[in-house]
């Protein structure tokens, strides 16, 4: 007989009653070095055995520098830099870097724009030189702006087909205390259509400043000169900038639900809770809690996939987005692959509620091991490592993300988990992304 709801909850809470002896902490990893060069923070994780060098440049020119009417200008400027002609024969920065054996891309965050450049170690100096050239003097001609806008519109169209991204965008918009920081990262086709060369140029000149910038590099860095990294930021004029203050009242009321319809085949249910930053004493417990919630959601949904991960086993999940401001814990269910998504989702939310009131029975060592494994195994690409070092450098006293996270997990107790559940998991905001032509009753 299939157990009913209360039994499911109790069974889940006691899921690791047997003593577990797994040691969560990993072997010690070398700590990234940290320096301040002319006002720019430079973090390095050198690995002489790597074949690649990865460099992230973070500039305070993200969403919170946009006005509400300018949504998309941060992305448009970044895309314009990627399309700026460089080298001889001249070609766009992204094509020139690809031809030299590398890649460049950008991400717009609530307060930053982050460029990530990666290249074969021997090509890295030349690739960074190309990037520096474009960064110092982007081509804001109408033709390049048009091409950049078209590229962004294509990316937006693609992301609108990803239901989880649509839901996260809505939840981020609802959860941001700064209204502009919660706007869509790339803007919208409508907002981009209202932004022209002069707007992009003005944004660049106002916010692409050296102050507050950060460079995080990893991989084989011994081929780069002493000044090569810091010279990236030196391509920008001195000065600091401040966010554009745009306050809107947060949602009030006991329950928050946001609904959107998109051209998708099945509904998605997403819940978002506030979560601690990486410098909080609650960071480690929240990582463990996220592992517990992830396992619980999978158990409740009874996702098939005995040994090998399947579509279905990846259709539910929990993500602790500690690298975004404000941080959050997100639960999601893809309704197309679960027999009764509403029930699975509601049960998961009930379990989360129960967690705040009920101490976990038995050992939490298995969840600690899972949390440690998730963190360590997800932090293996150069791009992830540069970004995590940047996040920890910004948000805490040390860029040593891996050892600090594993230590925080290792010292977590069941009482910590309950305390954190009670503190953060009270009142979620829920996003429902539905196929067009359906409604909530469906």
């Amino acid at each position: 007989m299939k157990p009913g709801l209360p039994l499911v909850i109790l069974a889940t809470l006691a899921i690791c009653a047997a003593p577990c002896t797994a040691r969560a902490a990993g072997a010690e990893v070398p700590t990234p070095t940290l320096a301040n060069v002319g006002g720019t923070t430079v973090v390095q994780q050198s690995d002489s055995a790597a074949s690649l060098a990865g460099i992230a440049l973070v500039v305070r020119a993200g969403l919170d520098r946009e006005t509400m009417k300018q949504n998309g200008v941060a992305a448009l400027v970044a895309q314009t830099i990627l399309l700026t002609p460089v080298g001889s024969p001249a070609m766009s920065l992204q094509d020139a870097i690809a031809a030299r054996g590398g890649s460049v891309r950008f991400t717009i965050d609530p307060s930053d724009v982050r460029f990530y450049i990666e290249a074969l170690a021997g090509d890295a100096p030349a690739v960074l030189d190309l990037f520096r050239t474009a960064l110092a003097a982007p081509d804001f001609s109408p033709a390049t702006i048009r091409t950049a806008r078209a590229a962004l519109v294509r990316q937006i169209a693609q992301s609108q087909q990803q239901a989880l991204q649509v839901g996260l965008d809505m939840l981020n918009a609802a959860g941001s205390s700064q209204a502009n920081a919660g706007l869509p990262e790339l803007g919208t086709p409508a907002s981009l259509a209202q932004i022209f060369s002069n707007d992009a140029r003005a944004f660049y000149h106002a916010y692409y400043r050296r102050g507050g910038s950060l460079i995080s590099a990893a991989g084989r860095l011994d081929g780069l000169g002493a000044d090569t990294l810091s010279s990236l930021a030196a391509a920008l004029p001195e000065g600091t900038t401040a966010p554009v203050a745009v306050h809107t009242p947060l949602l009030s009321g006991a329950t928050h639900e946001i609904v959107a319809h998109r051209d998708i085949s099945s509904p998605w249910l997403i819940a978002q809770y506030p979560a601690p930053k990486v410098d909080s004493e609650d960071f480690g417990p929240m990582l463990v809690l996220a592992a517990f919630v992830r396992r619980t959601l999978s158990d409740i949904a009874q996702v098939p996939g005995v040994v090998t991960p399947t579509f279905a086993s990846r259709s539910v999940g929990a993500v602790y987005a500690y690298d975004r401001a404000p941080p959050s814990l997100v639960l999601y269910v893809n309704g197309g692959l679960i027999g009764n998504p509403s029930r699975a989702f509601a049960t998961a939310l009930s379990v989360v509620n129960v967690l705040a009131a009920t101490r976990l029975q038995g050992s939490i060592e298995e969840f600690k091991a899972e949390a440690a494994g998730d963190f360590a195994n997800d932090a293996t690409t150069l791009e992830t490592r540069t970004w995590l070092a940047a996040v920890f450098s910004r948000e805490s006293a040390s860029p040593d993300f891996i050892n600090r996270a594993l230590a925080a997990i290792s010292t977590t107790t069941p009482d910590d988990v309950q305390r954190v559940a009670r503190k953060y998991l009270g009142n979620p905001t829920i996003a429902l992304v539905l196929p067009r032509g359906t409604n909530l009753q469906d």
Partner: protein
Amino acid sequence: MNARAAVLAATFAVTVVGLCRTPAPAAMPQAIGSLPRGGSYVLDPDPTVGSAAIGLWFRAPAAGFDNATPGISNLAATAAAVAPLASGKSLYALIHSLGGELNIEVYPDIVGIAAVVPAAAARRVIAGMTGAYFAPTLDDTAVKTARANAAVLGVQQRYESDATLHDLLFKQIFAGGPAHYPPLPDSVAQLTSISTAQAGAYAKRAFRAENAVLTLAGNVDASSVSAVTDGGGNGSMDTPYDSPLAKSPASATMTGSIDGVGLGWVGPPIADQKAATALDFIADYLFRDRTGVVPRTLDKSSSDTLLSGQFITLHDPGVMVVTIGGDEEKATEQRVLAALDALQQPLDRATFEAAREAFLYHVATDTQTPQERADNLGWYTVEGNLQYAPGLANGSYEQAVRALDPQYVADVVRRYLRNPVVVNLTATSSDKESP
């Protein structure tokens, strides 16, 4: 995992296991040696990451040693992972309890067992993995679990154009041998027809220590090799399980659960490093997602065309496979053929050199994680040419890439990439309505 990674994982739901092994030209202080109780190991350490990847690779025919039991390697490999070890806990449970993940990779001629774990757990997993495979004890419960796993994967695969078309192309190209049969059986009846005794006997023969290479990458060192717990053979690795080619491989039209088009060409063996490397380069230049000549002509904002093209490096022979799913299959097929036709003429020097440098970068960036490197070393070892795996210091892969020139690449296109075997897959109307 950060939110963006979660979106990608949830959207593109299943980890894609690369069939084309194109390793990174890393300058690692690697080590190669013999295991204490039979078999060999390859070590590729990287102390700057927090995880370790552990792989165990075998030469093992997917359809059995007599090619009469398709799916038996899948069943045996999975059952060995879920059967209880001496501790009472299975390898699968052990790895998960230590915060790791286990992947079982079954191909027509080889089997790879791959785990990625926090570094501190590496020794325990090496001990558990070698115990589970070098001294397998499969029982009915383990085989039943393995059947259930295979059944779930089988249903899933019906809706994956890439894997389905790959198997159908191999069926047309190879007249017999393990490559003629899908590694995952077509039907539940095939699964249930394999008994526990058959799976157990297969496991004992295929998963011998002397038929294995242990690959270690990431935050792990040579002392970990002493954690190997079982094995006792004095023999050597089996000879490669090659498959005979069809004399006149025919194109075919088949029905299934999805629409798609597959194109296949027989290529060189792994021993012909120069030609194999040229085909890797061609696949990267023409078909790589986002940067390839053909994908760049596809507007992904208005089309859900799924294009995959890769040269699969095998002992003898390798196979170039292009699969097209989603929509606009026939139009995309014409673009693929036109691109290959154009490449029969040498690229101009500047275009070629840019493409070659980009290829070297793609190889490096695709194989930068411990798991990718461990898989890579395992694949090349059991396919018969570890020295060709560029992950090895002083390996020959990067040299082979740098030795390519436009004329030779055009020659390879003319020699190998004309007259493809084509499989047209058409979904039945009832399947089209399924998820």
